[in-house]
Every structure is written in C-alpha cells, then in structure tokens.
C-alpha cells in the first residue's frame, strides 16, 4: 500500500538525518507512482503533485512523528477537494420537466445508468420520469431500454431505429411537457469523442432538446485516455455532471480524478453493480482513499 511505501521512504529519510523539504520530493514520488498505478492521467498527476507541493505541506509533515500518515491524510484530503469536496446534489430545481441527457463512450454503462437514475428519481426524489432512447445504431438498444422500463414500471417514450435521434428526443420532450412527467431522461448511442459526425449529432441533439443536465457516463476502469475523452465531450457539450460506473470492480478509479480535473464537472453518482438498485450518490472522499491504494 502507499502507506507502507511512504513509511519506507520516511524511515530511510530519518536515517539520513533530519527530514528536509527536498526529501519530501522522494515521498511525493511515491504518491506519483500510486496515482499512475491507479490510472490517473500522467499530465493530471503532474499537475496534482505540483499543487500538493505548492501547498507548503513540508512544514507540518516535517514536524510530525508519523510523517507518512500525515502526508497520506493530507494528500487524500487534497484529492477529495479536487474531486469536488462533499457529495453534490443533482440540481432538480428547474421548471419541470427537468431534462437530462446521458453521453459517453461505447459500453460505458449509459443505458443501464439511465434506468438507474430514473429509478432514483422515482423512488428517492418522488419524481415521474419518462425515459427515451435515441440510440438508432446499436442492435436492440431501444429494446434494452424498454425492458428496463418494464422492470421499473417507468414509461419509455416511443422511438424507432429509422428515425433521426433529434426527432425522437423532441417528441419525448413534448410528450413529457403535455403528459405530466416532471423529468425526461435521454439515452444516446455510445461514440468516440474524436468522431466528428457523431459529436455533431450530439451537439444538434443538445441544441434541440435543451437538457438541463448533460451527463458524461464513464467507466471507472478507464485508463489514461479518460482525460482526453472527458475533454472532448466537455468541449463540445459543456458537461454538467458525471456518472462513474462499474465501481463494484477493483479498478482503483483514477479516471475520476482525470475527468474531474479536466472538466470541473462534479461526479454525481456511482454505479455499483448490474442491478438497477446498485446506484448511489457519489462520495469524493471514499474514492480518494481508493485511488491512493
């Protein structure tokens, strides 16, 4: 663990005489390694280590009897702050229906998370959500959402694979506005952030449907590219939040720090399993200690 490695570093440093500011560098090198092993993007790691160093932590650590513990607590606290401090509320205080659009890479967990979020809104926030799939590409994507809607007894708006995704979304929003739904959740097809045509489609979808929330659904086990992917979606769409899925894996989840660091968007929810109940409000401090390992 990082704790053991830092202990080793400080033992060696004490053996060399008093601990100085300069040999905190060695301790921070261990932190850097831990973050890289946790899949945090290398440029994000560089920035974070600089940030930690500049907070003049040397002083307090030097005076501590257990500097490795002090450093870890400090770094974990800094990580939690960078990741958004406390758990963030999804802002639903808009004139209904609140509209949410989920976007992200192929297979990240959008369709499942959309159903989970709809269930959360219904059960935990007493809303009447309407779900809609604009995925005209993936075989049986619309059927997948229909099956989930049936499991949850949550309505799914009409959609056909030969339609324009924008028309599908527009019709669903209209139905929500007329039919007493106070939330519309829009599922989109997975796509690469470098696919110009599909990113244009998403931008058009956003311009017409005008969602209050554009949420990136990202897989917690994503590696170095999490930073570029998030950056790509954010630049085109202005993300308002993130859902991190598959946190029930043993992936360290460094992607969360990369995503948060490059977009500033809050991580709102964590996907913790394949069942629709496996969904909770995201806690930055918990993930911070998991990332450090």
């Amino acid at each position: 663990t990082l704790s053991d490695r830092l202990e080793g570093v400080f033992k060696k440093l004490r053996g060399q005489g008093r601990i100085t500011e300069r040999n905190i560098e060695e301790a921070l090198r261990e932190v850097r390694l831990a973050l890289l092993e946790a899949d945090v993007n290398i440029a994000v790691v560089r920035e974070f280590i600089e940030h930690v160093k500049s907070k003049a932590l040397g002083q307090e650590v030097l005076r501590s009897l257990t500097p490795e513990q002090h450093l870890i607590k400090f770094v974990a606290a800094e990580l939690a702050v960078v990741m958004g401090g406390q758990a963030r509320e999804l802002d639903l205080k808009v004139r209904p229906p609140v509209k949410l659009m989920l976007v992200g890479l192929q297979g990240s967990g959008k369709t499942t998370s959309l159903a989970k979020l709809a269930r959360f809104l219904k059960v935990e926030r007493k809303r009447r959500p309407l779900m809609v799939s604009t995925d005209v590409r993936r075989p049986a994507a619309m059927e997948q959402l229909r099956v989930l809607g049936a499991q949850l007894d949550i309505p799914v708006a009409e959609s056909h694979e030969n339609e324009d995704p924008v028309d599908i979304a527009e019709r669903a929003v209209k139905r929500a506005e007329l039919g007493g739904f106070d939330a519309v959740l829009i599922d989109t097809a997975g796509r690469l952030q470098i696919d110009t045509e599909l990113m244009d489609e998403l931008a058009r979808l956003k311009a017409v449907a005008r969602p209050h929330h554009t949420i990136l659904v990202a897989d917690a086990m994503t590696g170095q590219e999490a930073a570029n992917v998030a950056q790509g979606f954010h630049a085109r769409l202005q993300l308002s939040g993130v859902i991190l899925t598959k946190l029930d894996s043993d992936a360290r989840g460094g992607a969360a720090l990369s995503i948060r660091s490059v977009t500033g968007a809050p991580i709102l929810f964590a996907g913790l399993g394949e069942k629709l109940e496996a969904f909770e409000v995201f806690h930055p401090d918990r993930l911070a200690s998991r990332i450090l390992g």
Partner: protein
Amino acid sequence: VLGGGAQGKQLYEELEEALIGADVGVEASARIVQAVRDDLKNEAHPETVRAALKAEIERVLESVERPAADSGDEPLVVMLVGVNGAGKTTTLAKLAARFKAERGPVIVAAADTFRAAAIDQLEVWCNRVGAEIIKQKQGSDPAAIAFDAVAAARARGIKTVLIDTAGRLQTKSNLMEELKKIARVAGRNLPGAPHETWLVLDATTGQNALSQAQVFKEAVPLTGVILAKLDSTAKGGVVIAIADRMKLPVRFVGIGESVEDLRPFDAHEFVEALFE
C-alpha cells in the same frame, strides 16, 4: 551520441512517460525502458533508442503468438469472455462473419441469459451475418445453451461454434464460477471444448486489464485476448504486460462498430501506433 548524461536520461524518461500515457503501466514501462537501456549501454542516438524500444515491445508481443487450436474433425469451439461492456457480443458478430467466410456455417450460442435484450442484440447480429443462433429465454442456464450449441454443431457437421457470455467483473466469484461451469459443460459434450477462450478487453481500460486477465485465466483456460475499440484514442498498452506476464497473445483487434471492423493482430502495426 547521448551517453549517460542529462540528455540521455531525459530521453529515457520521455519514452517511459510516453509508454505510461499509452496504458503500458508504470512497472512494465520502467522494465522495458531499462532493458533497452542495459542493452544499448547508454550509448545511442535518440533514433536508435526509439527503434530499440519498438523492437523490444514487438519481441514481447510476438514471442507469445501461436496458431489457433486445431479441433480436428470436431467443431472448433470458441468462447468469448470479459467484463461488462467490453465488446464481446459485437466482436462475436465480427468473428462469426469471418469464420463463416473461412470455414463455412457458424453456430452461435446465446449464453448471456441475464442482461436486458442481450439475446435480442445477438439475434440481430446473427441475422445480419447469416449465422445460426442457439438460444433459450432470458434467465435460463447458460451452460445448457453452450452444451446444446456444441451438440447441434456436431450433429450437423458445422465447423465453428461461438459462445457469447454475459459480461462479468472478475471480482464476482459466483459469476466466475458460472463461467467455469459453462466451459466445463461445453467440454462435457466435446472434450477439449472450448478450444479457444478469448478475453475481450476494452482498449480504453487501464491497469485493471491485467487483473482481469489474471482472474479470468484462473477460472477458464484463456488462450488469447481480443483488443476491442482500438479505433478510440486509447493505445491498449495493457496487452504488453499481459503478454509478458501471462504469455497471452492478442488474437484480433476491433476497430469499429461494423461487422468488418476486425483485424488479426499485427504486433508491428500496434507498436508503431503506440508511439504516434
């Protein structure tokens, strides 16, 4: 000439960072760079160093390549496994099209009986590529479907069986047990089956891929990896450590969502792309 001075050190550091940025991993990147450094004894032009590094990675990847299993007169049974959303079902469709062209009719076992519309999804693909699907309703025993598919292929002289399985995290021991059972039961019908079991890895996955390979290999006899979504900006560097530590070859790479977006793995091409 670099020598061991600051300039040389900086080049090696930059190369190590490039590898880390490609998801090769901290430990594997350091090891590879050190191996090249020892070999060149700190006396080389940047171009020579870069070429040596590429050659070393290529060597690691090629050293574990081996031909696919030969099932003799029996059908070749291939099972696809991997974590949720990695690209198994889509990859299976691509493989079905390829095997059909190379070996004749293909039977597909729809052994993901859990996820919403999983069977529907596979059925659309089978219709598109002209492969026959063996399925039962959602919730039925995946091992039974695998068994039926192998039995059907043997009864009708069909040369290829492809088994789709549900996505599962390697941390879920009950799901890993289920996977063991699917493989075991397939082998009960045809000893030696599944002859090939390929782990489908999402190229955007980070270091967890290594743990996936390790734990899946404990459950079933993995014989290779398929790297899907390599058309993304991710480089898939995780396969290097997987090759080095687990001796698992990359069989194919997925480079898109259409049925033709599958290539046999080419180590040289892969390494070139790693440094782009």
